[in-house]
């Protein structure tokens, strides 16, 4: 028989055989724009060898159901994030400053649709 059965006996070549053999491709964050005029929104991440591959694979993984018209990718390591440990210091002081919301103004009729 020239073709082996469904359960292949030999390990496939070029395929990681365990989690530890996973490719060491860098991680990329993917941003997809749903339609013209809207912002690109973060929708997930993926592994790719370089930027062009990341764009292609983002198209494959994150736009399969017509989610997008444009894709951005950014190396995850290029993103500088705030430290979760600073959360209290950074964000809690804003809790009692409701006057920063523009909810105390009467809007004229002409701008009713703000």
């Amino acid at each position, binding site marked *: 028989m020239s073709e082996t059965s469904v359960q292949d006996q030999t390990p*496939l070549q*070029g*395929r990681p055989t365990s989690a530890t053999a996973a490719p060491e491709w860098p991680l990329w964050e993917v941003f997809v724009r749903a339609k013209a005029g809207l912002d690109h929104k973060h929708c997930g991440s993926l592994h790719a060898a370089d930027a062009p591959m990341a764009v292609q694979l983002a198209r494959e993984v994150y736009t399969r159901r017509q989610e997008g018209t444009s894709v951005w990718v950014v190396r995850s390591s290029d993103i500088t994030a705030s430290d979760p440990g600073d959360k209290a210091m950074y964000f809690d002081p804003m809790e009692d400053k409701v006057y920063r919301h523009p909810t105390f103004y009467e809007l004229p009729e002409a701008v009713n649709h703000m």
Partner: protein
Amino acid sequence: MNAAAELPRLHITPPVQYVLRLADTCLIHAQRLAEWCGHGPVLEEDIALTNMALDLVGQARALLTLAGQMAAAPGGPAWDEDQLAFLRSEFQFFNLTLVEQPLRRSSAHAPGGDFADTVLRNFLVSSWLKQLWQALAASSTSMLADIAGKAVKEARYQQRHNADWVVRLGDGNEESARRMAAALLRAWPFVAEMFAHDGVDDAAVAQGLGPARQSLRAACMDEVGPVLAAAGLQAPADSPFVSTGTLGRHSEHMGFILAEMQSVQRQFPGGRW
């Protein structure tokens, strides 16, 4: 109930065979790619391979529907896409022999499971399909022109995605270059059939259905050549061998892939889910 028993005789005229050549190439190529589902080298490419297979299934469905209508007597019953896919015999399939060759699984001719074979075949077939779809956009059969208009975008993307891999691997490290070169040696004998010429091509040209395969060669090779060169690959010299899947005479692998693909319909004729 046996749906097969009620089917009209299938009259495969040259124009019908012309459409089936394309339909079956898409269908069998998709079936081979689908064997990668859940087995891709990385998760992202696994999804990409399945996306490509689904593009091809969509193209095959539309083409099989068209072929069924063309094969029916005026006003008579027609074979539908499922019947054509799952109830025809091996000699009634007319796909390129290249696409029925094993990909993921091993055979006497190939180790199987080598990603190099997959990206190279995808690249060759999508380059060919792209030229064919472009020409078919001007088909005198409006349904075929419509199918081509949609499919050409899919072929264009598949060509780019796989050309990228061919160059990455061919121009990669020593091991990947060796494997790409071996994959090219395995695939190349089947390329001649993509540009072969016979009475079916003549009939298609005569009624404005579509181009002769021969006429696609120059444009196709103009795109394949530079990619192979960028990958550091050398196409083997042409040989007199021309495979004959498009004539209904297949390699030894065709029976196995049909047996698997058709087993459910054969076991439960007319079954739906």
